[in-house]
Structure formats: structure tokens, C-alpha cells
């Protein structure tokens, strides 16, 4: 009997498919299409210490096989999340991964401390959002990334995952690992730009936006491949995965699990179909665990 589960730090997920932050709300909308508890876990919309309105429209813009977004972290804040959304998520039986963003290490600490006392299962520290006016992407710099993780680790006993930007170098991933992160999630969206050629101005009020979707998949895959070789902790792959075949590719590059984001907009059932496709793949290949193929694409790996 194949064991479809995966272990990340002290946590076991029933399968390696996780809904990505920002693409899945708090799970409620997709639960109308299928039992979302069938997924390995669900990442919440990016949460902040205080509520945020986010950016003005337009917030989304299509590119070839890709999607630029500039939502700007619209969310109710951690307190309202814990009060109004988390009970429903737990009721649905979800493994809840709370994605958290803040402007500085201290504020990350405040939000993480509050969440650490709640029923969330994992905290995903988002140091890679490209859509906040006037803010740099902290995760691109090893030292700044380490500072945030150190702060959060000292205030939180729950599993801490760290979501890195696609531009993160190996040293940032290693710095985060050294500070006690339980896993690395890579990658967040690529910073992109679109210009309205009628007006000559950027489409988005915040000029840049985050690119996701199948267009970024090979780019994300090579980052995951490199990070998986550079750190001991699990890497969770994200970037343009729309099918079980794509998910297998990330696992073969060394990912323990993968997150599904934009694919949910192509088909609301996408994440569940990937869970089913992976199960079939395991049976067809007579795999006993994901370990048998994880990272097999690396030079010198067996298989």
C-alpha cells in the first residue's frame, strides 16, 4: 500500500498538494466544488497584523500563459482571521497554513506570536510579496530574511515555513534554515510589469506586479532544484503547476510538497484533480512513498 503522506518537520500531511496563498481565499469558496479537506493543506490569504484594503483596481492582468496580480495583501488582519475565518477552516477539517506578511521583523513577530496561540497548524512567513507600495522584498537578502525568521522562531513553537521570492539566492535559503525554519516554500511570484500602450502608463497603480501561472513553471522548477540541493530542510515547490505531471516534476527536482495557485483559476477542481492524478501515478509506478522519486533528477541520484 502506497503511503501518500509526507512529513515536514514534525507535521504529517496526508498528501503533498497544498493550496497556495492568495489563490484560495480561506478555502470556503472551493469547498463548494469538492471537499477541500482532501488536500494536504490550505495556505490562507496573506495576513497582516492589522486589516489591509489592498491595492486599487485593476488587480489582475493576463499575459501569455501567465497572470500578473497586484492584490496588495487585502485581508482582515490576524485578529479577525482568528475570530471569523479560522474556526470555519478547522470545522472543514483543513490543515491550516497561515501566510503572514509584515513591514519589519518586529511586526512579523507580533503577528506570528498572535497566530502561534491560535489553532493554525503552520505559519508560512511571507518575505516575498512583490505588491506592497514602497516595500522591498525582504526575502531576497539573506541577512534581512534571517532576522525575520530569528524573530518569529523565538516567539513561536508551531512549524514555520518561509516563502521565498524567485530571486532568492542559496545563501538566503541557508540563512533561513539556520534560524530554525522547518521548510522553504519557493517560489512566490516573479516581479513583472505591463504597460498600457494607449496611455503609456503602467497597468497597475503600484507599477510592478507578481507573475504566476504556467509561464513561470520552468523558472520556478530550476529554483526548487537548486534550493533542494542546498538545504537539509524540506522545500515546498510553487510556480505554475497545473497538472499532476507538473507536480511530479517538482518532486523529482527535490520538493517534498507543492502548492497549487493560479491553476485553481483555470479549473476550480484543479487541486483535487492533481491529488487524484498523483495517487494514480503512485499506483501505476508502484511507489511505496514519495521518497523513492524525490530529487531523482539530481546528478548522482539513484534511479
Amino acid at each position: 500500500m502506497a503511503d501518500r503522506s509526507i512529513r515536514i518537520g514534525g507535521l504529517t500531511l496526508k498528501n503533498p498538494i497544498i493550496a497556495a496563498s492568495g489563490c484560495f481565499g480561506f478555502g470556503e469558496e472551493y469547498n463548494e466544488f469538492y471537499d477541500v479537506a482532501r488536500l494536504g493543506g490550505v495556505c490562507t490569504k496573506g495576513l497582516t497584523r492589522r486589516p489591509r484594503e489592498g491595492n486599487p483596481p485593476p488587480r489582475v492582468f493576463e499575459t501569455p500563459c501567465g497572470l500578473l496580480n497586484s492584490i496588495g495583501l487585502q485581508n482582515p488582519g490576524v485578529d479577525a482571521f482568528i475570530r471569523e475565518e479560522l474556526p470555519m477552516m478547522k470545522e472543514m477539517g483543513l490543515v491550516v497554513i497561515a501566510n503572514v506578511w509584515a513591514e519589519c521583523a518586529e511586526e512579523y513577530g507580533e503577528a506570528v506570536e498572535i497566530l502561534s496561540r491560535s489553532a493554525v497548524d503552520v505559519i508560512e512567513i511571507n518575505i516575498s510579496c512583490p505588491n506592497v507600495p514602497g516595500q522591498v522584498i525582504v526575502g531576497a537578502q539573506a541577512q534581512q530574511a534571517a532576522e525575520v525568521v530569528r524573530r518569529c522562531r523565538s516567539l513561536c513553537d508551531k512549524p514555520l515555513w518561509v516563502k521565498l521570492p524567485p530571486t532568492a539566492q542559496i545563501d538566503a535559503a541557508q540563512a533561513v534554515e539556520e534560524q530554525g525554519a522547518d521548510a522553504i516554500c519557493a517560489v512566490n511570484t516573479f516581479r513583472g510589469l505591463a504597460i498600457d500602450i494607449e496611455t503609456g502608463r503602467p497597468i497597475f497603480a503600484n507599477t510592478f506586479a507578481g507573475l504566476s501561472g504556467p509561464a513561470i513553471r520552468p523558472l520556478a522548477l530550476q529554483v526548487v532544484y537548486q534550493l533542494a540541493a542546498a538545504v537539509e530542510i524540506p522545500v515546498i515547490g510553487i510556480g505554475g503547476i497545473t497538472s499532476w505531471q507538473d507536480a511530479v516534476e517538482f518532486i523529482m527536482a527535490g520538493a517534498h510538497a507543492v502548492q497549487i495557485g493560479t491553476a485553481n483559476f483555470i479549473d476550480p477542481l484543479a487541486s483535487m484533480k492533481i491529488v487524484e492524478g498523483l495517487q494514480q501515478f503512485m499506483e501505476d509506478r508502484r511507489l511505496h512513498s514519495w521518497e523513492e522519486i524525490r530529487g531523482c533528477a539530481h546528478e548522482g541520484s539513484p534511479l
Partner: protein
Amino acid sequence: MAEIAVRTASVLHNKHIAPNVFRLEVEGSFRAKPGQFYMLRSWRHDPLLFRPMSVFDRTEESLSFLCATRGRGTDLLSRLSAGDGLTLLGPLGNGWERIDERIALIGGGTGIAPLYYTAKYFAAKDRSAAIDIYLGFRGRPFLQEEFAQVAQRVYRSSESGEGGEEGLITEIFNPSGYDTCYACGPPAMLAALSKVCQGAGIPLFVSLEERIACGIGACLGCAVRTRKGMKRVCKDGPVFRAEEVFFDG
């Protein structure tokens, strides 16, 4: 509330009815309310997203959409022919509720799309309803006969002056005498209507358009700022009370 589902349906007709405007009809029984919409796609990954389209008409056997060709997605939809498959996600959004007897429906451009089924549905529900329709076109008006069948009176204007009163529909429309007004069209039209309806103390409901990614309220890609905070056009809307909306963005 009808349950939201992903369905594949077969195209019955796809008729070109005006420059860059087509009417796409698919086979099947769908449970949309007036003012609701579906997300449509007939492709895999490129374009990436569905295209949101409000319901133009619904019968027991079919559902149809009035679409304008604007980019690659709508161009692909315009090329579908009878027998082709179309994937539909819906019905989505709140739609409009009828609350009074004397009703004005005002549409501009492809914003006229949801008005036909709305008028037909309201009239079928209550035979005493008096429904007038105001249609604003840029060029030559279309679907005149169809609209005449579901409304008491149809007023039309054309910016080019072809086949209708020259000018904007907002220049013809007067809210006095109506209990409730419903509008769909370009933001400038909605802003002008909002002003005149507010001045007359007549309730106005507007259907907003935004770029929509997920269509079901999860991604916040279509959120707009309103007097009641951020609202999702796809889930909290597309219909809003005009006084809640900031028309200047």
C-alpha cells in the same frame, strides 16, 4: 441560490450580429437569475483565464451570451461554431432582485447584454410590471426587435446617430415615473445615471465590470472600494446599489 458548477456544453449557434458583437448560444438547462454571469472558456492554458459574460437569455433548453470581441479570449469565443464545446463556470454573482412595478433598465454598449433576460424574467414573474428599456449604442443599434418583445417601451440612442436618436442614452433617460432603475454599461454612463437618480430620489442598481480571475470570490482580483469597504465584483456583485459605489475609482 443555484449551485455553482463547472459544466461543458455544446454550442448551438454563434451569430455575428453587429461589428465585433456576437451572440453565443449553448445547449442545456441552466439555472441563472437575471444579472448573474458565467465564466466561459474554450481553450486550455492560453488565454489563462475564463471570460466573464452576463446571461443574455435563458430558456429551458439553452443559455445565451451577448459578447463583444475585445481581445484574444473573446476572439476565440467569437470563432466557435455549432457543435463546439464550451466550458461554463456558474451561475455567479448576486444578480438583481426585482422590487417594484415601474422599472427602467438602462444599458450602454455590451452593457445591454443582461437587460434582455432581466426584462423577460421580471415580466414573466409579474404581468403588471411596466418595464422600459433604454439602450445606448456607439454605432448602429442592434437587437431592436428582441428587446421590443420584452419591454413596454424601448428607447435608443446612438453616438453616431445611425438608426437612433443621436447622442448618449443618459441624455434621453429621465428617472421620474419609475420605482427602480437598473443599469449596466461604461463607468461614465453609470456615474451620470447615479447622479440623476440620486437627485430624483429613485433607487438605482448598477452592474459593475472588472477583470475577473477566479470568479468565485477567492482571489480578490476584482475587488473594488465601496462605501461599505472592499467588495468583490464576482461574488458580492456584480450588482450594487449605486450610492455604495465610487464611480471615480
